[in-house]
């Protein structure tokens, strides 16, 4: 199944309805390549921007924004997430894969 996903992506065969999922996964990997660990707020910003530029859906940028204060109230928002100390090794792992 994963092999079929990789092939469909490489050959540009991803169905339009599945584009947001691919955009999310690409943003996720970009994020951990930079940080070593996931920076959630950065991921959300990058993902929403990518979907906006692919689809032009302005409303998507602000969807779920109302959750932010609720997450903040529960101490679940991290504006300065922890980063991996040795991020160069993460970059080299990505480069070798």
């Amino acid at each position: 199944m994963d092999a079929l996903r990789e092939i469909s992506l490489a050959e540009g065969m991803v169905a339009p309805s599945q584009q947001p999922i691919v955009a999310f996964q690409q943003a996720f990997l970009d994020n951990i390549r930079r940080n070593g660990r996931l920076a959630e707020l950065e991921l959300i910003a990058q993902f929403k921007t990518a979907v906006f530029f692919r689809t032009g859906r302005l409303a998507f940028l602000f969807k779920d924004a109302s959750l932010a204060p609720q997450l903040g109230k529960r101490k679940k928002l991290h504006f300065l997430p922890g980063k991996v100390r040795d991020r160069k090794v993460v970059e080299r792992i990505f480069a070798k894969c």
Partner: protein
Amino acid sequence: MNIGYYPGCALHGSSNDYEQSLRACLGALDVQLQEVKDWICCGATAAHALNHKLSLALPARNLALAEREGHKQLFAPCPLCSMQLLKVQKAMAGNGLRAELSQIVEADLRGDGQVLNLIQVFQTVGLDKLKTAVKEPLKSITAACYYGCLLTRPPEVVHFDDFEQPKSMEAVLAALGAKTVEWSYKTECCGAGMPMASEDTVLDLAHKILSNAAAHGANCVVVACPMCHVNLDMKQAAVEQRYNKKLGMVIYYLSDLVGLALGLSAEQLGVNRHFVTKA
């Protein structure tokens, strides 16, 4: 008891209530968590969907770090992280990937450590010991134990419990004096990491899971996965709105219920930080 600990990104992010819960609960059971230094993301669904080699290399780096620190047991409370670590061990066994992965992650890999999920940590502590440590039997709890996809699957990778009809979580709850229900969705998918990328999918699946738990008489759902908790707890208001139905189903981490039975408070465990809380 000391065990290696790989928290994974979710527990250091918006699922930090899960980490609070298990640190409090396991601390009360005298289990000391030794966090692997400078661990990295396991790649999660994104890596295994987009880049197979990367999906092995990222968790392999964490296994190597844990081995270097001398951990014979490595606790990964997120079932996706746990499965990814086990997948690397399986891939290394016998097909020559050990040398290649060691070269990629710049550390020698053995792949001989034991990777544990949360239920296995309680099993390692011992359910008899757990039972004798209970101070507040959970008489008011009638739980639907929800395993989701990855605690028991793929069975050839995780080798844990019956992959279609698991019972290990029910055994933990029985030791706490709680009741459990038989229901139909205990190993169905909740939509995992897709609440933003495919919200319709998550809401549909969460609606089915929560409705089925309620229909079988459960007054709460118990999970051992950060993403299952997000989709059933944080997204529950959106499910109620979409399907015009009041659910009000409290979603506990398994460590919440163990901790409550041990006499810890909801505040100590972070239960008060959930979205759906008892009225």
